[in-house]
């Protein structure tokens, strides 16, 4: 209990919360964009899509299926060499954010694809029938029509990324997960662990609420 108060007072909890949020926001920002791109490509290049392309679909589908099932803690180790090439280091925040973004990209790609596939093909056909090219049909019809479920998918992904940040300590990152393990678990102080859990729950609840509100507005139900 005393330990918890001390950590609260010396700003450790605040720092950890800011760190976690920083990781998640950057990973969701970059991974969100890349995932959207890959997810849209998966949707439109599959058989019957408006840019049907067997080769592109096969490659992207393979990449997503390859990386998505790897448990995050193993992915950190597995793509450390790649992190060194891309962000110049295999440890610390840059490496962690790189791996988070990597994992978020492939996870989000599949979520985007699944949700865009719920858009009835008829509206795309209508867009084509009015003379729209494929790019316009994608940007002005496919994505707006699927946006409601896609937002819910992103909300889901956000929470999954918060979950992943708990592994940050493995390569020297910080954040709430690391705080819970380092100051709570290793020092036999369940108060600290549960305080970190509580903050994570609050973050997740707020994001879920915002996601639901936005999706409801988009879906108008």
């Amino acid at each position, binding site marked *: 209990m005393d330990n918890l108060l001390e950590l609260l007072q010396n700003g450790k909890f605040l720092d950890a919360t800011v760190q976690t949020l920083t990781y998640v926001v950057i990973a969701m920002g970059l991974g969100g964009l890349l995932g959207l791109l890959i997810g849209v490509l998966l949707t439109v290049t599959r058989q019957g899509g408006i840019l049907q392309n067997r080769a592109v679909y096969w490659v992207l589908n393979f990449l997503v299926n390859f990386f998505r099932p790897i448990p995050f803690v193993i992915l950190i180790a597995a793509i450390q060499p790649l992190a060194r090439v891309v962000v110049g280091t295999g440890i610390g925040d840059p490496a962690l954010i790189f791996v988070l973004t990597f994992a978020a990209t492939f996870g989000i790609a599949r979520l985007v694809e699944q949700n865009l596939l719920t858009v*009835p093909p*008829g*509206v795309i*056909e*209508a*867009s*084509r*029938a*009015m*003379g*729209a*090219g494929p790019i*316009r049909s994608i940007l*002005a*019809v496919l994505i*707006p*029509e699927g*946006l409601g479920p896609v937002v819910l998918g992103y909300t889901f992904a956000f929470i999954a990324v918060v979950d992943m940040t708990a592994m940050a300590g493995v390569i020297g990152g910080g954040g709430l997960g690391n705080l819970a393990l380092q100051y709570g678990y290793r020092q036999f102080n369940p108060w600290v662990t549960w305080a970190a859990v509580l903050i994570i729950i609050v973050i997740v609840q707020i994001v879920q609420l915002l996601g639901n509100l936005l999706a409801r507005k*988009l879906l*108008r139900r």
Partner: protein
Amino acid sequence: MTRVQMIGVSKRYPGRGGNAAPVVAVDDVSIDVASGEIHAIIGYSGAGKSTLLRLVNGLEHATGGRILVGEDEITALPESKLRDVRGRIGMIFQQFNLFHSKKVAKNVEYPLIVAGVPAAERKRRVAEMLEFVGLADKAQAFTDQLSGGQKQRVGIARALATSPGVLLADEATSALDPQTSREVLALLQRVNAELGITIILITHEMEVVREIAHRVTVMDSGRAVEQGEVFDVFSAPQSDTTRRFVATALPTEPAAEHLEELRKRHRGRLVSLTFRDGDVDQPLVFRTLAERGVGVNIVHGGITDVGGRSFGRLTLELIGEDLKVEHAVAALAQETTLEVLA
């Protein structure tokens, strides 16, 4: 005002699996749709009519034959050129296919944006189209706040925004109840009459053809089995498919089991007569029977209107002495198509 010519058009899909035979969805179909005509293509599901319609605006590519829409040879144009042509061909759908993420006005505006029309002109045109379909007050509504009939009217406004010369209607009223369906058909009739837009509509409902079509093509298994003026085709059907469609619109010949039932109840001679406005003089038929002292019971059948002319089939019970009935039948056979059922 646009003429649409389909000349020996075919569409084959490669068969699924290695050596599977190709699937022939449309098989050597020729239809010449005159400028300003409402042409119905009727057939059961799987007859290839939906595919044929999509060949006309190049959403799918014909594997044989030629299609001309006005001056544009659809079958010879690359996809990039087809996009421009599609602005001159409107299309409406069974499921309406409106954009739910856009308000009604934005739905109607979309094809204008695609066509590169300037904003002020777009706004004017959207208002004009919504006025035409009677939905000016719904401009700022979302599409899921509309009834089925209103949705299709938005679909029509959207399809006509770019002032196309042709409108393709893909089962446009099949998802609507009969009353709403009639309203939408009346609107299509206005589109044709007031704006002079050629309409090609596909349907599996005889009602639709009867209400608004000028000419009709009956399709079965990818082929056009019958074609002509609606009245001619339906008053003298040549193919089984056409006969079945006619039977859905009016009771013609009694079915076999029903005929047995009729025989039990009616002892007299049963004959079936075909009436065609212009060919058959109804009063004469009944006068002939009366003059020969033969009584009549109408036991089955009906008369209906197609394209402003009536036709039908009546099954009559002729009552009287055998010889008189015999003579009456012989006399009637001179006047009309007659079939002795019993």
